[in-house]
């Protein structure tokens, strides 16, 4: 069968484009080829356009009312939060992680534990707390030699949370800068601009500050060595102080308030600020990208939480007490989710205004 580069280039376009323009472009291409235009040149131009169309996104559907679109966008943006918050609350339960202990055998690197940065050998241990003192007693052989499937599952989840959150963060930084430049010369939007500039910065500083403080309070481990079956093992025991609990709780509350507040405020802003089509293009494209990443982060969270619950469960050889930096990941991920919502609502709000403008122009025309 002969390979037709023009058909391949047409097939590279997104589905919405093929439905709307596919037939007519195929007809024109065929006319031009009959005239003697180079097949590869036509295909090359179409392939470049395919990339452009993927980045641009579909022509908006004018049949829906803009108000409904805005409400749907706000709900869609808030939905991942509704899924994630119970997981966050469940997995950061202090009862479960009141104290943590782990035994480490050998070196962590290099190890087959990639991509789990917290992988280590698990032993069945007994943890006895008497007042401020904690005693750790190894009670059996290594339960998970190197990696168990729950450890691996949580490791994969953690890895993807980190990667996806960083991609979201980069996208959001770009959106902020484009929003700022769009609003810079409009005095009537100075309040919006100030909000865009300072609210993420203030929330980020507060959350990171509380996180570091809480981490500092928690990171006062007692180090010791024990001998198990003739081998020397390193033991680190961490006891969470009451103040650390309070700070962590404040962090959680601040994160949730920022989340709810940002969604509400940005939904309000979205209904008031008007951006031109050019100004809205980059935020819209990034918003779509982030909108697709947010559900993936939710899946990664679920994997991570599921892996941890299984990993920390009792086995026939004893209870494995899981130790990990449970507060290390979620402020960053939560912030990303907050601003994913914000940007979705904000950008769709801008699009709604553009559509209204477009409808008016068409009507007047």
């Amino acid at each position, binding site marked *: 069968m002969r390979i037709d580069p023009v058909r391949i280039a047409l097939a590279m376009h997104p589905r919405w484009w093929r439905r709307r323009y596919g037939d007519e472009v195929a007809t*024109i*291409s065929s006319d*031009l080829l009959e005239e003697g235009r180079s097949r590869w040149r036509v295909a090359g*131009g179409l392939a470049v*356009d395919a990339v452009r169309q993927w980045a641009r996104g579909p*022509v908006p559907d004018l049949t829906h009312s803009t108000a409904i679109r805005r409400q749907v966008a706000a709900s869609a943006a808030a939905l991942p939060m509704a899924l994630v918050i119970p997981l966050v609350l469940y997995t950061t339960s202090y009862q479960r992680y009141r104290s943590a202990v782990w035994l480490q055998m050998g070196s962590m690197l290099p190890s087959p534990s990639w991509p789990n940065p917290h992988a280590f050998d698990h032993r069945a241990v007994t943890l006895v707390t008497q007042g401020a003192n904690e005693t750790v007693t190894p009670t059996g052989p290594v339960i998970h030699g190197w990696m168990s499937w729950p450890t691996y599952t949580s490791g994969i989840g953690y890895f993807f949370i980190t990667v996806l959150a960083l991609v979201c963060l980069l996208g959001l930084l770009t959106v902020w800068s484009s929003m700022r430049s769009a609003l810079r010369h409009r005095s009537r939007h100075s309040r919006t601009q100030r909000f865009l500039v300072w609210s993420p910065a203030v929330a980020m500083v507060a959350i990171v500050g509380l996180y570091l403080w809480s981490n500092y309070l928690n990171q006062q481990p007692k180090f010791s060595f024990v001998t198990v079956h003739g081998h020397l093992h390193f033991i680190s025991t961490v006891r969470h102080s009451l103040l650390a609990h309070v700070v962590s709780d404040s962090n959680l509350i601040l994160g949730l308030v920022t989340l709810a507040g940002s969604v509400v405020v940005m939904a309000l802003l979205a209904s008031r600020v008007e951006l031109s*089509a050019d100004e809205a293009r980059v935020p819209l494209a990034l918003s779509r990208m982030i909108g697709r990443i947010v559900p993936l982060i939710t899946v990664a969270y679920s994997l991570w939480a599921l892996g941890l619950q299984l990993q920390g469960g009792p086995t026939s050889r004893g209870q494995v007490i899981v130790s990990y930096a449970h507060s290390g990941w979620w402020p960053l991920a939560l912030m990303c989710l907050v601003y994913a919502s914000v940007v979705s609502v904000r950008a769709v709000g801008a699009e709604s205004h553009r559509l209204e403008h*477009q409808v008016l*122009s068409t009507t007047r025309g």
Partner: protein
Amino acid sequence: MARSKIGRTQDATILVLTSLAEGPKHGYALIKDIEAMSGEAMGPGTLYGVLVRLEQEGLVEALESEDRRRPYRLTGAGVVALRARLETITRVAKIGLRRLGAA
């Protein structure tokens, strides 16, 4: 010598809008008109890249298709945008040519 790429994207937009200023045209007619007008052999990829953007911006609109050749026409906003752009280009061209003559 390699061809200068100054303003090629803008050129394509202006060419498409100018061609449609004469009246509604489908894609193939646009390509032929632009070729006759400017000597530029525009490909379907470039043409539809521009048309999709102009349609999203509300400067052109598609008409009912008779067959697989859908015609496009300028909207009111498209006419205003094209006129403003051509006036700017004319003003800049006059100044540029005068300065080149004086140099």
